[in-house]
């Protein structure tokens, strides 16, 4: 559009006037070294600072290619050097600025489309900011039943937002649902935001959710570990823990699902490590993680939570307490039957099978887990879900599976919530 062209021209002029760095005429070459000698020659080239070479892959070994960005006025000199030494290369990018301009255009275009259509793509994975924006959007679009609360802040001071679904009353019995306590389990945060939309839009049309919300409230924490989630986007897709610093160690983070006050600590805490570098590090003390403490405080202060449901991935399991010990909970029979009913609902949609059982007998013995804490604090209906899949993609579940996963999980959650609604205690 002509508007866009104008914007591009202005920003180019503006950029030029601000002396913004441009990459016009810069080339990116891929150099294929065939010997240590050739590697050394490239390292020599690397040392010539006046050429202003920017190595994207530095020369280190003959087995690996060397990628280098060359400013326009050094291109001929570098090529002459390579050719005179018989070093082979190919041109990866002819003109870097062209590539960058196209990328910027694409981004502007896609941003414009998103803004004008104003629809959040539930079938894709999103950044924390995008999810938080959608929380606001839901609270505004469905303001009659949805409100957003802040229950605390993460270690890096990001807000912890909970959506409250309520048709009124005062401190009604409520259901707690959380997702993303382990940041790499992306399908859980993605499912949670879909579930939020589902609850909001189904009220008034779906008899089950309508009757539920007429009696009870739902609290939904879509991103329990925002610091970890951001880290999986910026740095390490496989990050699991919080991002808190550990005294006396270079290793960062605590496993937030080993940090709850349930069987915590002791010399032999099963399944929970005492080493800060471990992915299941329990932390220096129970509730040391602000992400955990904030939820504990909220639940205790509310005082009327009847179910505690937490989403994890992967393995396709539906579990009830205990994890910290392998003995049956007092309500074993009821929880097992309810779990099986929920698994059956899940299976009814796409045939996805979930295994039902206690944490200890189904997955592994592990102390400091959230549903053990909630159960031992009087919340009978405490369940932990491990969503799709069983290991083929694991944590990197394709986005195409987000909505089917959310849909089937929702059926399982509904089965449990209906039972909670009909069985006050």
């Amino acid at each position, binding site marked *: 559009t002509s508007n866009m062209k104008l914007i591009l021209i202005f920003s180019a002029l503006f950029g030029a006037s601000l002396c913004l760095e441009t990459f016009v005429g810069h080339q990116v070459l891929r150099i294929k070294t065939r010997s240590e000698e050739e590697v050394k020659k490239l390292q020599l080239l690397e040392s010539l600072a006046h050429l202003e070479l920017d190595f994207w892959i530095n020369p280190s070994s003959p087995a690996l290619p060397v990628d280098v960005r060359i400013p326009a006025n050094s291109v001929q000199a570098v090529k002459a050097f390579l050719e005179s030494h018989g070093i082979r290369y190919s041109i990866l990018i002819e003109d870097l600025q062209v590539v960058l301009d196209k990328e910027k255009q694409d981004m502007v275009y896609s941003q414009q489309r998103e803004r004008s259509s104003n629809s959040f793509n539930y079938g894709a994975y999103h950044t924390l900011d995008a999810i938080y924006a959608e929380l606001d959007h839901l609270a505004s679009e469905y303001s009659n039943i949805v409100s957003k609360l802040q229950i605390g802040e993460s270690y890096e001071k990001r807000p912890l937002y909970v959506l409250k679904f309520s048709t009124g009353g005062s401190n009604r019995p409520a259901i707690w649902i959380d997702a993303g306590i382990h940041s790499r389990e992306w399908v859980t945060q993605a499912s949670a935001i879909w579930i939020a939309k589902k609850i909001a839009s189904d009220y008034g049309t779906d008899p089950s959710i309508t009757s539920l919300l007429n009696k009870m409230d739902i609290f939904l924490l879509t991103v329990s570990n925002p610091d970890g989630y951001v880290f999986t986007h910026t740095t390490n897709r496989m990050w699991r823990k919080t991002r808190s610093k550990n005294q006396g160690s270079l290793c960062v983070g605590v496993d937030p699902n080993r940090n709850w006050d349930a069987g915590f600590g002791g010399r032999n805490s099963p399944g929970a490590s005492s080493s800060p570098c471990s992915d299941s590090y329990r932390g220096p003390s129970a509730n040391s993680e602000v992400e955990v403490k904030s939820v504990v405080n909220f639940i205790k202060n509310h005082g009327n939570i009847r179910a505690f449901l937490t989403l994890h991935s992967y393995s396709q399991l539906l579990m009830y307490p205990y994890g910290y010990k392998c003995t049956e909970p007092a309500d074993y029979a009821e929880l097992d039957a309810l779990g099986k009913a929920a698994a059956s609902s899940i299976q009814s949609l796409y045939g996805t099978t979930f295994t039902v059982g206690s944490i200890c007998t189904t997955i592994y013995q592990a102390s400091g887990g959230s549903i053990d804490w909630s159960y031992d604090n009087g919340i009978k209906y405490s369940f932990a879900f491990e969503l799709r899949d069983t290991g083929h993609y*694991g944590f990197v579940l394709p986005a195409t599976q987000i909505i089917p996963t959310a849909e089937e999980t929702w059926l399982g959650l509904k089965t449990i919530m209906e039972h909670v609604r009909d069985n006050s205690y």
Partner: protein
Amino acid sequence: DINGVGQKYHLELVLEDVLDKDSTVNCTAEVLYHLGNNIPPDVQFTIEGELKNAEEADNIFYNRIKSLEKELVAENIPDSHGNVSPEMEPVHLLAWVASGYVIWQNSTENTKFQLAQIKRVKQVKRSDEYLEFDYTILLHEMVSQEIIPWQMTVLWHPRHSVQVTQDSRQPKHASE
């Protein structure tokens, strides 16, 4: 439980073709975990019937890689969003098979490994008929929840089985 030797398990399982869910084959296996856990478990198995013939797809992939001008290099398969491009799918499957060997060699009764992701793969050009790939993979160990980087060198040719000629556990960086 076999006194002085270890624990033996008898398994009956169904193998399902990853590329064709309706294609299944019955299998029985015996797994012996040795006392002390310092050697890989012994595995014996029998398959009822035949595994699907993948000759055509194998040849297409083989010829495509053989005719590449530059050695194949790729990272993050699947990517963060679970995507695997069609060209990379065979590379992914090859890693899947090869990682099975690495997992077997490093399994005990207290481990459960899955291939989490291919971090990096680099083809190593050879003068003989084999294809060689140097993979750095991430293994997810379920019990400890650790992500373990692992290097493996994989050899393959359509008419020969997959070989892992070298593999080694890699250190994890404290800063990650």
